[in-house]
Structures are given as C-alpha cells and as structure tokens.
C-alpha cells in the first residue's frame, strides 16, 4: 500500500456512485418491492381501463335491452353451453338488459374518481392543517383541538344529513344529479378523512422543525413560506404519499359502503359499490354480478395498499439505505 493511497484515504472520501437524485434511488428501492410494482401496475391498468375503456367499449351503460336481459358472461359458455351468452355482451347483462361490462367501466370511473378526488381533498386539507399546526406553534393548539373535534364527529350520520341537506343546492350547482352527488360524496369523504393525515404530517413537521437544517434555513434568512415550501414539504412527502394511498383505498370503500346502504349516488348512476349491492339478491344465480364489482373493488384497494406499502419502504431512508 503506497503512502499516497493511504493519505488519500484520510482525505474526504469521494462518493463511489454516480450522482443521482434521491428519487431515482426511491424508484430503485420501489422496484424491488414486487407487491408494490404489481399494485402500481394494476392501479394504472384499472385507471386507464376506466378512463379509456368507455371509448373502446362504446355500449351505453344505461341502455336497456330488455330482450337481452340476464345474459351470462362469455366464459360461462366454457362449462355451460346452454347458458345465454354472447360476444355482444362479454360480461353479460343485468335484469334490465344493461351491459355489465359498460356498467363496470362507468362504475369504475365513478368509484375511481370519487376515490381520487376525495383522497386529494383529504390530502390537501390534511397537509395544510398538519403543516400549519406543526410549524406555527400558536396555531397548533386550536388546530389540533379542531382536528379532535372533527375526529369525534360521527361520520355516517353526518353524511346522511349532508346528503339530504345539500343534495338539492348541489344538484342545481352541478347541473345534474350525478354531478351534485359526486361533489357531495367526494366532499364528505374528503372532509371527514383528513384528520389522520393532519396528525401524521404535524408529527413529522414537529420533528423536522427540530432538525438543524430548518434552523439553518432560518439562520440564512429564509422566510416562513419558503421554509415550508422548500424544506418542509419535500421532506414530509413520504408520509403524505403513504396516507394518500391509504386515503384512496378508504375513499373507494367508503363510497361503496354508502352505495350499499343506499345513500350514495342516484340509482341510475352505477358505481362498483352500487353494482355489488344491487346484485346481492341474485348472487346465487348470477354470481358474476357480485364477483365482478367485488373483485374490482378488492383488487383496486389491494393494489393501492401494496403500492402504499412499497412507497413506505421506498421512501424510508433507513430501509432504502440497506
């Protein structure tokens, strides 16, 4: 071993790896999590399917074709050649002859958009409250009391009340019953599910605030807004993303539970939850009508959960380091 070699080692070590942003490392770690990759892929697939699907499968979900009612999905023909099947309705039809594939697509659209929108609202409020409460000590007390208050408000009654209360004005505002209910349901789910995010974000912000780089930012004269924007938000992104995935899943489930209880969307506006609820009485004769939306909900939630799991691992530097 030569001297220069040794002395060189005593200098600062050069990083051996190529420079790369943290995000490419995150992506690297994320890719390792098979479940997460599958979950993300499936979520993407479902989202694309419900977005693009209706343009490819142009059958109107509300079109009644009473003569072609109660058709079975095409695969039933595999074991039961006498079943009423047909390629014009690959997933079969319901008791009024509406195409199930089309309903699944438009139902998925509704469910997914409720999920996404409600999640975004919850995330926005949650992050805002969390960051503000965590960063501004004076606002912490009031905001957290408020969070507690919302947490202890009973959600279901609230929702039912809101549905009956605001349906009309919102329908008028949105121009259509579906639009009105959409706003309402999204708003309610969003408004009643931000608290968890807020608490987590606040906790993270409180911890981050003690980190020296925030103090450092202040000592170099960075204004509060910039500290929050440049230093806090990027660093609380990981818990936010994780609660986002969970929020998406819960929103989808909440919406379908509401549809199941009969307080969700108007009955001619299918969502997966409604399709499932409506099919329950006939589930022995037409198991596919329950299974299809049921599996769609479960798979979506499952994939979102796996995605969240993977993100959590990928975004956690302790795990990523390993």
């Amino acid at each position: 071993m030569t001297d220069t070699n040794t002395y060189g080692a005593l200098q600062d070590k050069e990083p051996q790896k190529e420079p790369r942003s943290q995000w490419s490392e995150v992506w690297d770690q994320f890719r390792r999590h098979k479940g997460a990759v599958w979950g993300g892929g499936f979520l993407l697939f479902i989202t694309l399917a419900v977005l693009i699907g209706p343009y490819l499968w142009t059958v109107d979900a509300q079109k009644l074709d009473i003569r072609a009612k109660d058709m079975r999905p095409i695969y039933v023909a595999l074991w039961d050649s006498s079943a009423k099947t047909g390629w014009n309705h690959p997933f079969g039809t319901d008791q009024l002859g509406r195409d199930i594939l089309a309903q699944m697509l438009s139902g998925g659209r509704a469910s997914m958009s409720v999920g996404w929108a409600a999640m975004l609202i919850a995330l926005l409020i949650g992050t805002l409250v969390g960051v503000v409460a965590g960063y501004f000590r004076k606002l912490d007390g009031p905001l957290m009391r408020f969070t507690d208050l919302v947490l202890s408000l009973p959600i279901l009654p609230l929702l039912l009340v809101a549905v009956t209360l605001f349906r009309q004005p919102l329908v008028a505002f949105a121009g259509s019953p579906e639009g009105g209910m959409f706003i309402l349901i999204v708003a309610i789910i969003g408004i009643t599910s931000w608290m968890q995010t807020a608490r987590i974000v606040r906790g993270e912000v409180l911890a981050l605030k003690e980190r020296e780089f925030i103090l450092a930012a202040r000592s170099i004269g960075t204004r509060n807004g910039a500290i929050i924007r440049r230093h806090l938000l990027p660093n609380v992104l990981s818990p936010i993303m994780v609660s986002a995935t969970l929020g998406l899943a819960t929103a989808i489930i909440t919406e379908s539970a509401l549809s199941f209880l009969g307080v969700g969307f108007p009955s001619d506006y299918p969502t997966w939850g409604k399709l499932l609820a409506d099919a329950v009485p006939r589930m022995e004769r037409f198991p596919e009508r329950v299974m299809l939306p049921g599996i769609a909900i479960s798979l979506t939630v499952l994939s979102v959960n796996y995605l969240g799991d993977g993100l959590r691992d990928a975004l956690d530097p302790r795990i990523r380091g390993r």
Partner: protein
Amino acid sequence: ERGSDGNVSIIYWQAPSIMNPFLSGGTKDVEAASMVIEPLARYNETGELVPWLVEEVPTVENGGVSEDLTSITWKIAPGIKWSDGTDFTSADVKFTYEYCTDPEGGCAQVTKFEGVTSVETPDDMTVVVTFDKPTPFPYGPFVGGESPILQAAQFADCMGAKAPECTEQNFNPIGTGPFVVTEFRPNDVITLKANDNYRDPAKPAFATVTFKGGGDANAAGRAVMETGEFDYAWNLQLAPDVIAKMEEGGKGKPVAGFGPLVERIMLNQTNASPDLPEGERSTRAHPHPFLSEPAVYKAMSMAIDRPLLVEVGYGQAGKVTCNWVPAPAIFNSDTFDCSTQDIEGANKLLDDAGFTDTDGDGVREVNGVPMKILYQTSTNAVRQDFQALIKDWWRQIGIEAELRNVDSSVFFGGDPGSPDTFQKFYADVEMYANTFNGTDPQSYLGNLLCDKAPRPETQWQGENITRFCDEAYDALHAQLAETAGSEERAKIGKQLNDMAVEQGAMIPLVHRGRLSAHANTLGGVVLNVWDSELWNVADWHRID
C-alpha cells in the same frame, strides 16, 4: 290444542317499534299488534266484513245500523276476556274512542273516528256509535287492524299528552288476541306466548311466537324459503326472478294477495317550472303547458309496456291495471284496456294532434315548448328500474324525461319546507303507490276533489296531488257519500275512477299485491290484504 305446536317464528324485515297502532300507524306496528289487540270486526281474505269480538256485523238489514244511517250498534260477544283475566266490556270500546280522539295525543288513526259524535255504552255489551251525518259506510271505528280496542284499565293514565310516556303499556298492551307479549325489544324482536284467557280454548296452536324484525326483504325471503330458519316472512318486495330462485330452496312458498294498492304515475296538472316564483309553482295559477292535452297523456300511457313492468318488478305480486281503484272486485272498472304497448299508435296520436318535432332534436314541441318532463319518484330499486324503462319508451314517442329520485323519508315526509316532497310536486310527473284501508274507497276517491289540492295556503298539505279539478267529479263524489247499497256505490265508484283516468289525472301502471312467504310446515296461513296479515294467527299450526 293450545300450545301444542311449540314455537313459530315470523320475520318482518321492517322491525316493529311499538305495539300501539294508535301511536304509529306504520303497517309493521299495526300487524305486530294485531296478534295481541283486536277490533270488533275485521275483513277476511275476500274483503268481506266478519264479526270478531261481536256477535254479528251490524247492517241496516239486521237493524244494527239505523235507517237514517247515522248510528251503528255493536253487540259484544259474551265471554270475551282480556289476557289479564278481566272481562272485555263496552267501556273499553268507549275508552278507545276517547283515547284516540284526545286532541293532544297525536293519534295516528284519528280518521277512523271522523264524523263520530259520540260513542255510548247503554250496557256492558252494547256500543252505539253516532255520526254527525248519514254515513252509508259506518264501518270505520273499531273495524280492522288499525282500530283495535285498548283496555281502559291499562291505558287510563295514558291519555293525551301522556300517551308517549306510557312505555310499558305501549310495548305490552293487554289484549284479547291469541298471544301476549313476553318481551318487546323495539326495532328488534318481540317474543310472545299464548294467551291463557283466549276465547277459543283450543287456540292458538303455538305456545310461543318469535317475531324478528330487521334486515331486508331479500334476507327475510331467504330465511324462510332457502334456509328454513323462519316460518313466515312478510311483504317480500323482490323481483320475480329472485323469488323464483328462492322458491327453489324448497323450504317454503310464496303467497300473493291483491288489495287496492296501485303503482301509478301522477301527472301534474299545473306548471312546476322553476322559473315561476315560489308560491306559484305547482299551483292552479299556472296550468301545465302540455300534460293536460288528452293526446299527450294518452300517448304516454300507450307507450308503456305494463306486462313487462309487472314481469320486471313484481312477478306474481303484480297485475296490469288501467284503474285507480282496482279492488275490491266490484269497484274494478273494465272501461280501459292498456295491456299492450303501442308505440306506433302513441306516435300517431301525437302526430295527429299536431305535436310534432319541429326542430329535429328528437323531442316534440307543443307551441314551441319542447316536451321535456321531470320524472321523480322515491329511491327504491324497482322504481328506478321502472323509471329507466319508461324513460326509454317515452323517448321513443318523442318525449324526453329527466329522471330524479328522492330519498323516501324526504319524498313522503311532508315537510312543507322541503321542495322534494311528493305533495309539493315540483316535477311534471311522479311515481308512487297508494292504497286505502278497508274495502270502501269513498274517502280515497275523495282525494281528487278540487279543494284537497296542496297549496301554500294549506302548508302544502292535501291529498289531491295532481291538482286535478273537475266540478262534475266533485258533484258525483258528493252523491257517492249519500248513497247506500254496495251495488249502487260500486257503480258510482267506477264512474269516478274512469273520470280520473280518462281526464289524465294519472297513469295507473301496476296493481300491486302483497307477497309473503311461509314455511312448508306452517299451516293455516291465509293471506289477507284487507287487514293485518296476521289476522288469523290463532289458526296457524304446524303440519309435518
């Protein structure tokens, strides 16, 4: 022999919340109570009056009803005892009248006593009911499941404003019926046992009853016909294919019966346009722009495939009807035939009347007003299916319908502040079902009298939902009120029915029956749509 058949279990998917029908009026509560408390007379499965706690049904012929039709005299059958062992007397009957007519009590059945000026008890076994005017049909008070007799001794302290506080009495009334309550769990389960003092020593055959409430019609049907967990399930409002599938379970069978319940589309005779100022919307101040045109409502009716609606929505629990009053049979008019759909005919009718699609958007115009209508109903799976189908058919005759459904608690809630009640009718057409109690439609037919229309002055209360108004109709109804004799009454009744349908007050769709199911091992079930379904629960027994 009394009590020899063990337990019978009944499931009502709407759970009873009280055992006092005077405080509730809900069907589930009335029916549950009918196992315990009874009226003087009730209707049998054919709609005929049969004596229950009396010796015979009073009529003019047997002298029980006075010639001038202003009073009726009931003779209580001897030997009837309350379940606590005391005697049933006319005083109890009189007390029941006083209980229900107390102005502070909020009695749900107070209309049963409409026109009654007094109830007298010349002796323990005689009750005389006097009316303020000749009453050709005096069988309102104390007849049918909605008007049973309460025990005076038990309810003495529960008059008027105190009525709701008498929890014990309301949950566990002393009655003359075959069973007595052992435990009442509101909105959950009622357990009952045979009444030791029941008048027929051989009845009831069952020693106990478990009366479960809650869930939904589907689960109730399944519990009787598929899993056999229950013996009787009430009012299975399920699609026919679902019922058929359940029947395959082989544990029980459905039974259907038809009362006067009709699913209909009400046509708003007035303009409900949101452009009108509040207070003038849906009032006679502004007639509807096109719905009162005979060609329009007739075409709308012709476009509907009623047999298909029956098949889709009710199966054996539904029949095609073109009438507002399809039952009892003598009141059922045969003037109209509407059992076949005729889209072409409907189109022709509209074309001939000159209502054509002038701007080529597929929707016809009347004087430049496009035939777009708002079609509302309550939230309910079958109704939404109907809406979807009918919207489709109307589209085929150039009428565009916008669908809307309102939560039933709001729709039927009658809150004058809400714009969504069926009474306010802020829509062009609305669909719901209605019926009447007992077998006499006089007051039901009165629903279309001019002055019964809901309007701001009446806080939007009133039964004339369509705001139909025809002097001839009002006059004919007045005549009905003075006519005795069932033949004669039926004739007028049919005329009234025909006038209403002909003039487009409504489009009747389906004559709905009751569909209930009982286990194969349960004998003695006679489905009665004119009274409580449990009217003859004393006769129920186990068969093997």
